């Protein structure tokens, strides 16, 4: 409680201003078709280097929450999801807009995003200290098992093909081995080229693999894009308390699904939106209206995708394991400011963590004014020529990659990562496991080798003596083998039922 009050007192006007700027900017970028959270975060990145750490994180959290919400505006008004996580919103929102209920649809999307985001913040507040407290018991074996759990789940959950997911995660681990050995200090894979001695850092890789690759993907798409004509509407109409009361179960269920999926590394907000929408379609009392403009569908999609934001912060802050690329950049920004995420952060500086929770809550509340501003200027935003906007995005991303270390190598890295990112997209390989592999590569190597050294050649015997490590490994196996066994059982059940007929 003391830490919570301390963090409240620490939030100054710069932090509040940055949350607002970040949320507004994120909403604008999210509303523009094709540009999502990572592009927003990459553009905002250079600004964080000159800000105090709390304001820097506030800016990024604002962009994160705003960009996820912003996608709903373009989904509803032009039937084009600004971000992949808003695809389900378009299914219900656009028919509502065509029926002349665009104001109501955006009102529901805003309210669901706000409540979903705030719900996940509450969960973050309750569970992050517990998780961090548990994590203080971790030694080298436990950290190895934990990082292995994080890596394997992101590899298998975020890719359409398991092989490609594993390949992407291993690519990240390979990138992380360049530079100094974390134990002996010897240099590896630098080919006597001095700039490589400090290794391949996260920021240029993320900027390249996500933001520059996105610019290249837009170049591919621009030649096939038709002119967009938004549905006309006035200011958003927020649902009344009575309306919320009628749909509170849907709101709560979707927020819960989003938060839980957010905690799981790799699943992300798109998966949350689809799972929650599917569940709403199955269980909603208005399920016969789904696909024709049903508010429950918008609630399911928007409450869950915004709830992912708070959920993803729990493992990131409490364990130092990012759930997705956005939280990976946030961790890199924290480290840049001298704050090391993990169990010790919760023990030694809980105010930093709580201030992140408060600013994320604030960002969710600010979605209402930001949504109103973006709605008012939406048709003008669509008129910005993409041919001019894309080189601007590229330049600011490139400079952002450079400004973290003022190292020319980062410019080359960002460009190479951009080329690799577009190739990965083309071949259906998810980039997120590569980024998480790069982040977790060094701690994984350090803890794994430390475990080997401590066990004096009896690694597996020693491993079995650590119950937490065994539990984490069992959880990893369950996550990997569980869905496979479930689908096998389902396949067996279907023919059995069929033979009965």
């Amino acid at each position, binding site marked *: 409680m003391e830490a919570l009050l301390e963090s409240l007192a620490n939030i100054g006007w710069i932090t509040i201003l940055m949350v607002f700027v970040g949320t507004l900017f994120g909403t604008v970028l999210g509303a523009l078709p094709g540009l999502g959270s990572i592009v927003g975060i990459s553009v905002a990145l250079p600004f964080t280097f000159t800000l105090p750490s709390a304001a820097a994180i506030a800016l990024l959290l604002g962009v994160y929450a705003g960009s996820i919400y912003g996608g709903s505006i373009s989904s509803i008004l032009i039937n084009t999801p600004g971000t992949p996580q808003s695809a389900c919103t378009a299914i219900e929102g656009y028919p509502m807009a065509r029926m002349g209920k665009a104001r109501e649809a955006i009102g529901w999307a805003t309210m669901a995003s706000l409540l979903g985001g705030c719900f996940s913040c509450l969960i973050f507040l309750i569970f992050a200290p517990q998780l961090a407290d548990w994590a203080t018991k971790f030694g080298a074996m436990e950290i190895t098992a934990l990082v292995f759990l994080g890596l394997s789940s992101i590899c298998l959950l975020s890719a359409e093909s398991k092989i*490609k997911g594993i390949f992407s995660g291993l690519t990240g681990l*390979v990138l992380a081995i360049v530079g100094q050995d974390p134990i002996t200090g010897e240099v590896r894979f630098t080919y006597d080229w001095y700039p490589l001695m400090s290794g391949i850092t996260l920021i240029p890789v993320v900027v390249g693999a996500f933001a520059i690759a996105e610019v290249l993907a837009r170049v591919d798409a*621009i030649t096939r894009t038709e002119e967009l004509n938004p549905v006309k509407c006035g200011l958003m109409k927020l649902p009344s308390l009575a309306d919320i009361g009628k749909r509170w179960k849907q709101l709560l269920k979707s927020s819960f699904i989003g938060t839980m999926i957010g905690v799981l590394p790799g699943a992300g907000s798109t998966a949350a939106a689809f799972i929650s929408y599917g569940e709403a379609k199955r269980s909603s009392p208005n399920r016969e209206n789904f696909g024709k403009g049903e508010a429950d569908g918008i609630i399911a999609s928007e409450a869950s995708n915004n709830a992912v934001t708070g959920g993803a912060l729990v493992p990131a802050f409490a364990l130092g394991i990012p759930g997705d690329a956005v939280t990976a950049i946030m961790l890199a920004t924290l480290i840049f400011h001298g704050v090391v995420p993990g169990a010790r952060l919760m023990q030694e500086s809980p105010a930093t963590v709580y201030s992140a929770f408060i600013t994320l809550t604030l960002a969710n509340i600010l979605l209402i004014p930001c949504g109103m501003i973006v709605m008012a200027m939406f048709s003008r935003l669509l008129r910005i020529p993409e041919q*001019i906007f894309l*080189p601007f995005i590229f330049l600011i991303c490139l400079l952002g990659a*450079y400004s973290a270390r003022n190292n020319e190598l980062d410019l080359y890295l960002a*460009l190479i990562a951009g080329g690799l990112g*577009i190739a990965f997209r083309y071949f259906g390989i998810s980039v997120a496991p590569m980024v998480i592999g790069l982040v977790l590569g060094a701690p994984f190597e350090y803890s794994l080798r430390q475990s080997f050294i401590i066990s004096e050649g009896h690694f597996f015997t020693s491993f079995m003596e650590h119950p937490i490590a065994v539990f984490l490994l069992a959880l990893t196996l369950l996550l990997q083998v569980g869905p496979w066994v479930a689908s096998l059982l389902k396949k067996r059940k279907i023919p059995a039922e069929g033979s009965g007929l």
Partner: protein
Amino acid sequence: MPGYKYQELIFSLLMLGAGLVLLAHSYSDTYAHSLTGEGALTPMFYPRLVLWLWCASSLAMAIHSLRLSPKIHKSFNAKQVCLALGMMTGMLALMLAFGFMAGAAPFVATFAISLGYKHKWRLAIASLLIPLFLYILFEHGLGIMLPTPRWDPFGA
């Protein structure tokens, strides 16, 4: 142009080749005389493990691509994307050689033209104002130094 199946196969084999080169390097003389001990203490213990797994996953991806149908087609404007990537590389080379403005201004103009932008005056203004805005923002607003050009006519 080979079909998608063969493109994926070529990509997987390229990755496998890169992995094998790095793996061969890890067994080279450069790391043969480590003074730090044996097993997990050696700096190549973990990289070799990761590289072996990376090669195995690339090989698995290559085998997976062989099982794909040759009829799979993905619409992708490769020519336009390669042109954009080339312009980005050219911009970087110009920026490092002659400075940010010299690289960014022609980049904005050529990039927009290549994507079919036709308003000449607006383009001329944008290709000057965007780099100028970014220069002022980074150098004076944020206090972040932009890359120093290798060739500076003013000797600054």
